[in-house]
């Protein structure tokens, strides 16, 4: 064995308890980093996946990002007199020239398009009134922009077309109503129209917000119920390439003027929460590794202090300062490496345990167990951070030790 390594190992063995604590400190940091990173990334990916699958990638709405300029502003632009109390022009809700827009959008490559009319209704079943969002869809188009068919838990999506006044409900909404497939509901809108509808299916997307409040029926039926014949107020779009959603949405909005949101924009607040959550968690996990590094700093400082006589004699025997430093840096490296290997095993085990815990949580999406994203890169990052901080923690006292003047120590020992 190399002499430096031999001396380093001898020092570490000589302080076995402290060495063990330091190794365990690094292992804890590495292990938690791996498990938490797998958990954070897993839950984020799970959420994004569910959002991407269950919701359109782009939605064009019958609204504008900035309020439209009123006629008086257009007529007297830059006027010196400020007119107050002007009655704003009432605009009929709904996408104008929808057929043309749909035609043009359908012509764009890699884009699937489905028109909808969305409105608020009250559903009554068994004396229970529940407010819901009723979405009028064209089943053929809808199946291309969402995974609604796959999400059906009961009934049949195709029954929407063949059943008079058929409706499908989100699973949470059905639960709230206490209704099931085959039941009949009374559905009334703000237009004062009420009809009885038959539940032909129940869907479950996994996105709590959708499952708890949305119901779907045929577009024509929704237009009648909401009192808005031939009107659509949203166009839902699915992309072949999810990564271009933001750019594509911006281009469509620029072309037609209507507010067009990509899935990222629609879920921006949630993604921001996830980002903040990640920052907090990684900071905590990073702190564990930093504390472990302090442990290494402590042990190397103690060893160099205790071994100052050895350092002096090694220098008198012809060791250069860099060689003395390398002995103590090697000690930090050994602690870092041992902690990393142990931490990998701990992290792997912890991930397995966390991933096997069964529970039911409903927040943004519902889960039955913690989603994990296992990526070898997490192991590499944890190792790089742990070994890097271990070496750095050892470097400082090691450099101090290397600078020791042997004469000072020999005089002090005499």
């Amino acid at each position, binding site marked *: 064995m190399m002499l430096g390594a031999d001396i380093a190992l001898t020092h570490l063995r000589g302080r076995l308890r402290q060495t063990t604590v330091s190794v365990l400190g690094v292992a804890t940091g590495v292990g938690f980093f791996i498990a938490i990173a797998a958990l954070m990334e897993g839950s984020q990916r799970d959420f994004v996946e569910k959002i991407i699958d269950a919701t359109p990638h782009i939605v064009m709405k019958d609204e504008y990002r900035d309020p439209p300029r009123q006629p008086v502003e257009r007529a007297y632009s830059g006027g010196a007199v400020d007119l107050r109390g002007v009655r704003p022009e009432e605009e009929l809700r709904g996408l104008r020239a929808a057929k043309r827009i749909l035609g043009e959008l359908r012509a764009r490559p890699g884009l699937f398009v489905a028109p909808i009319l969305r409105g608020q209704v009250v559903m009554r079943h068994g004396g229970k009134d529940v407010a819901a969002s009723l979405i009028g869809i064209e089943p053929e188009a809808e199946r291309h922009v969402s995974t609604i068919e796959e999400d059906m838990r009961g009934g049949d999506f195709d029954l929407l077309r063949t059943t008079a006044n058929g409706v499908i409900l989100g699973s949470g909404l059905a639960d709230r109503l206490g209704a099931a497939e085959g039941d009949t509901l009374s559905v009334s809108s703000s237009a004062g129209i009420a009809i009885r509808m038959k539940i032909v299916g129940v869907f479950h997307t996994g996105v709590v917000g959708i499952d708890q409040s949305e119901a779907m029926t045929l577009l024509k039926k929704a237009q009648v119920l909401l009192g808005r014949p031939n009107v659509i107020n949203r166009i839902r779009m699915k992309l072949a390439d999810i990564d271009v959603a933001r750019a594509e949405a911006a281009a469509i909005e620029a072309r037609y003027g209507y507010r067009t949101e990509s899935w990222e924009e629609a879920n921006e607040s949630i993604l921001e929460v996830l980002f903040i959550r990640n920052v907090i968690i990684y900071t905590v996990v990073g702190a564990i590794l930093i504390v472990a590094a302090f442990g290494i700093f402590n042990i190397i400082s103690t060893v160099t202090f205790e071994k100052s006589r050895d350092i002096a004699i090694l220098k*008198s*025997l012809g060791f250069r300062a860099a060689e003395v430093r390398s002995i103590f840096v090697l000690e930090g490296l050994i602690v870092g490496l041992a902690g990393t290997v142990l931490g990998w095993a701990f992290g792997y085990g912890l991930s397995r345990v966390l991933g096997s815990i069964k529970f039911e949580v409903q927040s943004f999406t519902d889960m039955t167990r913690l989603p994990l994203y296992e990526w070898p890169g997490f192991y590499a990052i944890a190792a790089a951070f742990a070994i890097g901080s271990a070496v750095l923690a050892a470097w400082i006292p090691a450099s101090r030790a290397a600078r020791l003047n042997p004469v000072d120590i020999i005089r002090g020992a005499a």
Partner: protein
Amino acid sequence: MIETAAAKAPAIEAPAIEARGVGRTLPGPVPVTLVRDVDLTIATGSFCTIIGPSGSGKSSLLYLLGLLDRPTEGEILLDGTATGDLDEGDLARIRLTKLGFVFQFHFLLPEFTVLGNVMIPMRRLARIDEEARHARAAELLASLGLESEGAKRPDQLSGGQRQRVAVARALANDPAIVLADEPTGNLDTHNADIVFEIFAALAHEEGKTVVAVTHNAELAARADRRIEIVDGRITDSG
């Protein structure tokens, strides 16, 4: 005694160590002069002692001669080569190959065996393989009467034995010069005698240059040459 290359070689008359106007002053608000105006020539194969009262600068001069410290004035020459311009790596190399140190405290590495301690300089130099290192270390220990102590730890030895192990370690790389700083300071008279006999043998039988600092006049008198130092200045160069 071990037969070494140095022992076989004919005596070289050139000085092993030469100090020319050497001084050493510690910087600070009140500078402290440890050694001043030292002009000294130590012949190869001689056994010299440096003697003087406590705080006279004996050890400081030895550290300067052994390149463990650098003079603030003058120059040290080893085998006629000036050392003033050598960098830390060069000085370390010289200490490893040409110099052997024995201190008042043995400075053995407590976690290593006696054999392991003696092998450290050889492992650092890496000139010979592990088997040869082992054989040489065992041979050195045997020559110092420690043949059965190789597997022991330093804390299992007596003070005199530890100091002899330190001597064996100093000789491991067969240095031409052995420098000893109060090597008998912690030993009883019997063990002090043994150590000084070893030094005399190293000089007279193996041709090594031995310089030992002591405050014991009786021991100092056994050397070929006695150098006296008072207040950092040589008062009698023997």
